[in-house]
């Protein structure tokens, strides 16, 4: 683990290339005229790890909204390291996504968990924004964080 969990999870979210423009364009093009169901999209690392999936986005349904927005349901974003290990999973039952503006929000639930399943963060009502490649996340209500250290954590800081 290269980062402390909150940072790593957030970067996992960031890895949520979902908010990157090329990915956003792909998604937008896929659903601009019709509802898309069981949507899955994957993004890969740059060479030399171009065979490894960086981020996988899955949603049960993506529907266009006015203003170029998308209504995504049953959203799951998985972030992997360059060895294929799951780093973080982000899940929300529904969110509004602005692909070109680079934000997503929802009054609903958001859950972020580490790949090993030991730690997670969840809450209700969230807002994500990517500006100049930098990610901001806010969860506004009922935030609950659980951190379970591996048994061999050694106790060091």
């Amino acid at each position, binding site marked *: *683990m*290269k*980062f*402390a*969990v*909150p*940072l790593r*999870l*957030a*970067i996992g979210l*960031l890895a949520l290339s979902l908010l990157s423009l090329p990915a956003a364009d792909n998604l937008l093009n896929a659903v601009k005229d019709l509802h898309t169901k069981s949507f899955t999209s994957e993004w890969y690392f740059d060479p030399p790890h171009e065979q490894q999936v960086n981020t996988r986005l899955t949603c049960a349904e993506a529907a266009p909204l006015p203003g170029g927005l998308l209504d995504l349901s049953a959203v799951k974003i998985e972030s992997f390291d360059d060895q294929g290990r799951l780093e973080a999973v982000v899940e929300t039952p529904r969110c509004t996504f602005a692909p070109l503006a680079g934000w997503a929000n929802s009054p609903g639930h958001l859950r972020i968990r580490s790949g090993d399943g*030991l*730690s997670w*963060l969840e*809450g209700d009502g969230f807002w994500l924004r990517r*500006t*100049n490649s*930098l*990610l*901001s*996340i*806010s*969860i*506004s*209500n*009922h*935030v*609950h*964080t*659980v*951190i*379970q*250290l*591996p*048994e061999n*954590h*050694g*106790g*060091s*800081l």
Partner: protein
Amino acid sequence: MKRILCLLLSVTGVAGAQTNALPDKAAPRFEINSQGWDFSQGERQVVYYGQVHITDPQLRLDCERLTVNFPPTGKHPSHLQAETNVVMDFTDAKGAKYHATAAKAIYDYSVVSGVTNESGSFSGHPQIETPQGQMTGEPITWSRVNGQNLKLHAEHPTMGGDATNALPVKLF
């Protein structure tokens, strides 16, 4: 997150105590409840706010706002700040109970030339109750090098100790 928590706990020395107390027991589990949570990658900062409540088997910490900063490089948070109605209760490896209150508690961490420096302070009418007695001051500061030789210092102490030396009691 685990490091954040360990860091936070290290403010009171609990992280080290846990290591001693639970060498091969179940993995420690920490929980943080708060109203809200903000993360800013640009500021390299995480903020928990609104009735922040942290629990683990040996520690409880309550405050209204907990800010965690990360350095540009490295994986260890560089700064923690708990604000407003800070209340800490913890039990050390020997079962001794400690209670601390303050308006603000700060923890700073850095590594310079291979030396790990930790320091912190309690301010805003801080008060620490230990099995040996009670300590107040404005502020109460502490420092530690390479995880050892904890030094406490109370400015304008109102009970126990003096203004220049560490407390005679071993707090943590």
